[in-house]
């Protein structure tokens, strides 16, 4: 009797939990392992099919080789693409967090009626499909788009338009990720007890000081989540840089699609995805480590109380 209940309590849920894990292992894990092996020049076994149709691939004579990675870093074009990916990701993430903070502060502490309007407006990007939004943005901003026409009629010409540039990609990424950022940060701000803010004000703390010493420290975790998740999303983004970006440099998400589909070089495409994966892995490590240390700090604080 006891045995059966233990079975029901322990092993059955475990088996049930195994199903999705097995699915992930077989349908995602195995292809990832194969793809990583392929980037190291392993063209045998299950990689034989992709290798048979690939052009210009590095094949390991015996064992594995770093040749494909060397080819990536030898190409000035791909180095420029990697650099563009990194700075576009960094800049769009920083701008997004800043804008999200400003909006969240306004919704929490600003004019109540306008705050309501703002909290509806910032949700809009969530309900517009990315393809449509990026196409609309880029046609608005392109050199012969509406914005240029408006500026032109005001006598402002020769102003660089962000359509089809990396800067345009930054704006597009901020636009689409904004709802996520504002929702998380304003949720964090709402949970800051009004007592704390009033107490701070009573002792004469300035707004800047309140922000820096009360609001920001209490919202570290939501801000961190927004930072990391936006950055990881931007790193691997495809639709926005594909529709809004320049012909060159390209973000790696676009370049890898071209290498895979248009240049017949799946190996280089997979090298790029491994590199993006490593950068994203680094970011997630920062996330996990700082989350843990923050939790520990909170635990210590509650203990000392």
């Amino acid at each position, binding site marked *: 009797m006891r045995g059966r209940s233990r079975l029901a309590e322990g092993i059955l849920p475990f088996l049930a939990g195994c199903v999705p894990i097995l699915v992930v292992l077989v349908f995602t894990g195995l292809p990832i392992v194969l793809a990583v092996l392929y980037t190291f020049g392993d063209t045998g076994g299950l990689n034989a099919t992709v290798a048979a149709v690939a052009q210009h691939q590095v094949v390991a004579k015996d064992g594995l080789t770093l040749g494909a990675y060397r080819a990536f870093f030898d190409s000035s074009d791909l180095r420029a693409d990697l650099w563009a990916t990194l700075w576009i990701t960094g800049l769009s993430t920083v701008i997004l967090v800043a804008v999200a903070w400003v909006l969240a502060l306004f919704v929490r502490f600003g004019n109540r009626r306008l705050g309501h309007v703002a909290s509806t407006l910032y949700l809009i990007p969530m309900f517009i499909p990315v393809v449509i939004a990026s196409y609309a943005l880029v046609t608005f901003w392109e*050199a012969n788009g509406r914005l240029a026409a408006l500026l032109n009629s005001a006598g402002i010409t020769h102003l660089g338009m962000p359509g089809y540039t990396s800067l345009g990609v930054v704006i597009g990424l901020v636009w689409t990720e904004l709802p996520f950022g504002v929702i998380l940060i304003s949720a964090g701000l709402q949970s800051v007890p009004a007592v704390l803010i009033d107490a701070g004000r009573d002792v004469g703390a300035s707004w800047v000081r309140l922000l820096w010493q009360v609001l920001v420290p209490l919202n570290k975790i939501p801000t961190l989540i927004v930072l990391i998740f936006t950055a990881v999303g931007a790193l691997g983004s495809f639709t926005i840089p594909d529709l809004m970006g320049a*012909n060159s440099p390209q973000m790696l998400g676009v370049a890898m699609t*071209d290498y895979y589909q248009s240049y017949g070089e799946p190996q280089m495409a997979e090298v790029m995805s491994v590199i993006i994966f490593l950068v994203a892995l680094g970011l997630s490590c920062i996330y996990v480590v700082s989350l843990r240390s923050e939790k520990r700090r909170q635990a210590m604080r509650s203990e000392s109380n």
Partner: protein
Amino acid sequence: MRYRHATNLLGNRLGRALLAPLAVAGIGLVPAAAAPALATPPPSEPGYSPTAKPVTITVETDSNQPIEGTHLFPYQNVWIPAFEKAYPNIHVNVIMASSSSFDSALYDRIIAAQHSHAAPPVDITDSQIVPELLLAHAGVTVTSKEVPNMDEVDPNLLQATDYMGVPFRGSAVVLAYNSTDVPSPPTTLAGLLTWIRSHPGKFTYNSPTTGGAGYGFIQAVLQTNVPAGDLSVFSTGYKPSLESYWAPGLKTLASLKQDIYQNGLYPDGSAATLQLLANSDIWMTTTWSDEGASAIADHDVPSTVKLAQISNPTLPGSPVDLVVLKGSPDQQASFAFVNYMLSATEQSLVAKDIQGFPGVEWKYAPKSVIDEFGNAAKNYTPYWDSQYTNDVNLKWQTDVASS
């Protein structure tokens, strides 16, 4: 659109179900002497006697768009009715591929049927699986004995398919220009390059990965430095060492960048370049002959926009081939169909319905077709093989776009 398509199919099927018994009864009742009067196929018709028993053949195609401005599909509603009128005892079924996965599944079934020596699921195809079918030698080799009108087709195009595919239509990359801005367009590639340099910002082409119209211009420029003797390799094989001949062309394209629209903005796709032409942001671009012709016909671009082919070299194009599959029964009927698609009747319909170039050489094309395409009605260079086009795309990205 999808709904309309479904009702259309249903309508056809219903009509056929109602008419078929009548037709059979009719044939039974008509006296033998009257039969030849019913069917008077053209004299060039290959070995298909009007008294032969009625047969049905199946054609598969991935052309699944209705004729611009109508609800009619080219094969079902126009081309095949014309054929069935000339050959009343051959009935043609059409299967329209709805997606590329349909095509690749069909390819697998065709190859499987061949391995088991069974009849293939369709008798004729013109869809995107043709190149693969040719590689697998799944097509019947045809000669002008079976398809007499093949004599009018460019032998180079037939050779490229090992005589398994018969090009019955095609399209080529051509120049599209606004004749109010460009009264006398360049006629050669060298002339075009000079024109671009002397009119900075008034020309662009789409990036090669986003469409063949931009790619076609690049291929023509790269081709200029390839020795004539090596040129055929590019459309029949793959020798990477020959790509060293591209270097001067890539330099030319890179140096052209400053004179391209917006100092080097290459739009995504030829629809975008046509848009720029329509707005007069640019005065000239490259486009597909059928895309350009239908844009003019639909007034998507001003009526002053004209198409022209250049020479030395010409911009490339590609034919659409009909392939009769090995193991299909009633091959005589299939040959009769292929032959009829090359006839003046069908070639005029192809030009009218889908702005397609003729499959026969221009000198044999109906006059109305030649008139329709005007300066664009010239032979085209074959498109290079996919391994070369892959390398062209990559080299353009590294040497031109990021220069």
